[in-house]
């Protein structure tokens, strides 16, 4: 089996698993979230920093090691966005948009500037550049914002056609994606599609910070692609199949910092002039100089960026908290700062949430939290018996917490607006909020047979069930975010239920009389 076939099979399996991770059922998502994200560079790195866990540290070490040994094969084997681009490139070839690739000079200045800025921003706790450009998070958003709704619609249409035959399935629901977030993802999809059709893997070699970082390592990787000048007939077969456009026939060199390790060139050469072998030192010295210039430019630019950011560092949190109503963050995210500084907006929690309460935002968290998800209580509520988001979150933005802990985690506080609540205004029984409150934080006070709701704050966990259920427009009960999550009191049984329950069974059942 050739290395190309191996790559296609492995990357295909990885991509399919990713599709299942983002579009499958809760159980599938939970299962795959333990396996796939630890071996993605950005989640592994962020998790290692925010909340170190063995598998993620191992994953990070493995990614760095395989890059040191084999070059950037991560980009062709493991990266979901890489495989999506390979499919797009293959597709654009099939429809004749571009028949062959040709060598192009690297855009090292831009490339290392982006890398430097992204790293500098991350260093000061602003994760939105990483989140925007990271291939894993971007792929996740593509799956969640486009693929999942599509699959759901097809599924629902499918089950609708079965209804006349008395065959019933549960309809699926899909996460609400605001148009701003959808548009942002669409811009990236269009950009990547264009780059793929015209310039192969240019995204990976110029914009992607992971590609740039791994490229620095793969320059000195143990195995390298080399062109044997003596055997080469300059037929440019290898150049034509090089998606990274990094084979320069004139200088007979391969830019290993851009090579994505697809092995296409190896099999294209009829004269075996392309080889994949141990690095030879004198060659790397040749290819180093243009990269070095870019790297120097990038370093300077990023240092300048860091200074610029530092000058504004005080303002960034201001943007974030400037709003009157900061968004509610999911249970396990501890506080708004922790959440925004660890979330790369991959939207995995959005796609996995069974009640679809998590909604990707655009600027709700400020410029530092672009596309990060919030609890959207106008669309849904947080299920009391569920901790899926904290289980699947790969970066530790939503820390894992047990279901029992989750049930006592106050992420917000419900406030009752008595001036618009129908019970207080019309003196009619409503009780929609109390019916759905899972913690019994909403009590009813009986005044002349009308039951008036009241909130007992100590039990409220801010799940939003009451807000969603409230029939008035605007809602008479609204959850306000707690920027720092708190712990709720545990609701114990009613005072009148202290009696043992089991013996009561026997006592009750023997009475043969009826009350009428």
């Amino acid at each position, binding site marked *: 089996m050739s290395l190309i076939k191996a790559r296609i099979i492995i990357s295909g399996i990885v991509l399919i698993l990713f599709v299942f991770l983002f579009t499958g059922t809760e159980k599938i998502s939970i299962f795959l979230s333990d396996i796939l994200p630890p071996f993605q560079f950005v989640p592994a790195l962020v998790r290692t920093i925010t909340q170190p866990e063995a598998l993620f540290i191992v994953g990070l070490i493995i990614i760095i090691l395989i890059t040191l040994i084999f070059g950037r094969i991560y980009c062709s084997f493991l990266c979901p966005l890489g495989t999506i681009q390979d499919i797009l490139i293959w597709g654009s070839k099939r429809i004749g948009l571009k028949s062959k690739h040709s060598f192009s000079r690297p855009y090292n200045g831009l490339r290392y500037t982006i890398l430097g800025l992204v790293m500098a921003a991350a260093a000061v706790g602003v994760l939105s550049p990483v989140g925007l450009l990271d291939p894993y998070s971007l792929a996740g958003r593509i799956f969640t914002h486009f693929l999942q709704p599509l699959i759901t619609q097809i599924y629902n249409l499918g089950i*609708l056609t079965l209804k006349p035959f008395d065959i019933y399935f549960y309809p699926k629901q899909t996460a609400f994606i605001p148009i701003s977030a959808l548009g942002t993802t669409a811009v990236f999809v269009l950009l990547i599609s264009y780059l793929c059709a015209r310039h192969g893997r240019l995204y990976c070699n110029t914009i992607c910070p992971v590609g740039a970082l791994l490229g620095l390592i793969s320059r000195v990787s143990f195995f390298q692609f080399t062109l044997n000048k003596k055997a080469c007939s300059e037929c440019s077969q290898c150049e034509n199949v090089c998606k990274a456009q990094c084979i320069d026939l004139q200088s007979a060199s391969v830019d290993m910092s851009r090579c994505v390790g697809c092995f296409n060139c190896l099999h294209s050469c009829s004269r075996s002039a392309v080889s994949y072998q141990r690095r030879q030192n004198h060659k790397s010295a040749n290819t180093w100089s243009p990269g070095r210039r870019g790297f120097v430019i990038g370093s300077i630019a990023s240092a300048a960026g860091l200074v610029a950011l530092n000058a504004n560092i005080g303002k960034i949190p201001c943007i974030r908290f400037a709003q009157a109503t900061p968004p509610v963050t999911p249970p396990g995210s501890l506080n708004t700062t922790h959440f925004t500084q660890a979330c790369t907006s991959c939207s995995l929690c959005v796609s996995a949430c069974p009640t679809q309460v998590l909604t990707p935002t655009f600027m709700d968290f400020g410029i530092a939290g672009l596309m990060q998800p919030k609890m959207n209580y106008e669309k*849904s509520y947080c299920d009391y018996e569920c901790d899926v988001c904290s289980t699947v979150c790969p970066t530790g933005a939503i820390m894992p917490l047990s279901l029992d802990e989750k049930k006592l985690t106050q992420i917000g506080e419900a406030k009752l607006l008595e001036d618009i609540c129908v019970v207080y205004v019309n003196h009619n029984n409503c*009780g929609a909020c109390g*019916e*759905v409150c899972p913690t019994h934080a909403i009590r*009813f006070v009986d005044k002349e047979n009308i039951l008036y709701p009241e909130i007992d704050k100590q039990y409220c966990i801010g799940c939003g069930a009451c807000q969603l259920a409230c029939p008035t427009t605007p809602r008479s009960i609204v959850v306000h975010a707690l920027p720092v999550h708190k712990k709720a009191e545990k609701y114990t049984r009613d005072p009148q*239920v202290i009696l043992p329950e089991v013996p*009561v*069974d026997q006592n009750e*059942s023997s009475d043969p009389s009826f009350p009428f």
Partner: protein
Amino acid sequence: MEDTRKYNRREVIQKGLTLGLIAGGTVIFGKPDLLMAKGKPAGIPDMVAVKNGEPDVMFRKAIELMGGMDRFVKKGQTVVVKPNIGFPRLPEVGATTNPLLVKTIIESCYTAGAKRVYVFDNVVTATSGNARNCYKLSGIEEAAKAARAIVVPMDDFSYREVKIPGGKQLKTADVPSLILDCDVFINVPILKHHSSTHLSIAMKNLMGIVKNRMEYHLTGLDQCIADFCLYRKPDLNIVDAYRVLMSRGPSGPSNPQFANVQMKKTLLMSKDIVAVDTAAAKIFGKDPESIGYIKIAHAQRTGNMNLKELKIATYAM
């Protein structure tokens, strides 16, 4: 059932006259339940109450006293059995109808010759993940499927709008087409505490087949609950008072250990939805006069809350 039928003038006059005569007659005789009691063979009670048995045994006894399921379900008819599956709770919490009872009713319908029996409820928080949890956790999905019923999940396309004739607050309702098209509609509520209507029984259970029920909350629960019965009363109401949730209803706690349940081991059965709610309130230990919708429905002549005027068959096992 036609929901948007246009009447011509003659029909309207005829129908109006007939209705007026019947209504007038009933007022004179002072027994509104006569309206529903036509065709009832002599000796059959208006209501049956059975206690101290298991749900299936009590049901078989009750339906026998009622004159058998054949009175309600004829050969080849389609039946809707509507239990309460409103919350994701285990049967032990007493928030959802007993699955064994649901199963026995379905079996009885098929024995009487029913062509198809449908089982469904509109869950309170209707996200897909939750609806599935409700159906599964309540044990009703499994029980109903074991008895060959068709378990139907609700979606946005399951409803048709109907007008409520004479509704004071509730003028229109979105009702599942299956209810509108079925031959026999059997209401199988569970008796439980309810935070905003005091009790949830048979009439309250019908809120589960109305999609626009937020209107109820907005315009007054009691009046709307009573109003809906002006549209269609179930052909039979079977109240599950086997395991009764005494507080923290309608959902009850998710952990059955903390559920304040009493084993009343009782089953009520009647065509009269007001009577059956009145009797159930008494079993719960609550004065029916304090339940808004029972009083309104009685006043609107949906049924009779004066149990003394009814023929009630009781049976203790």
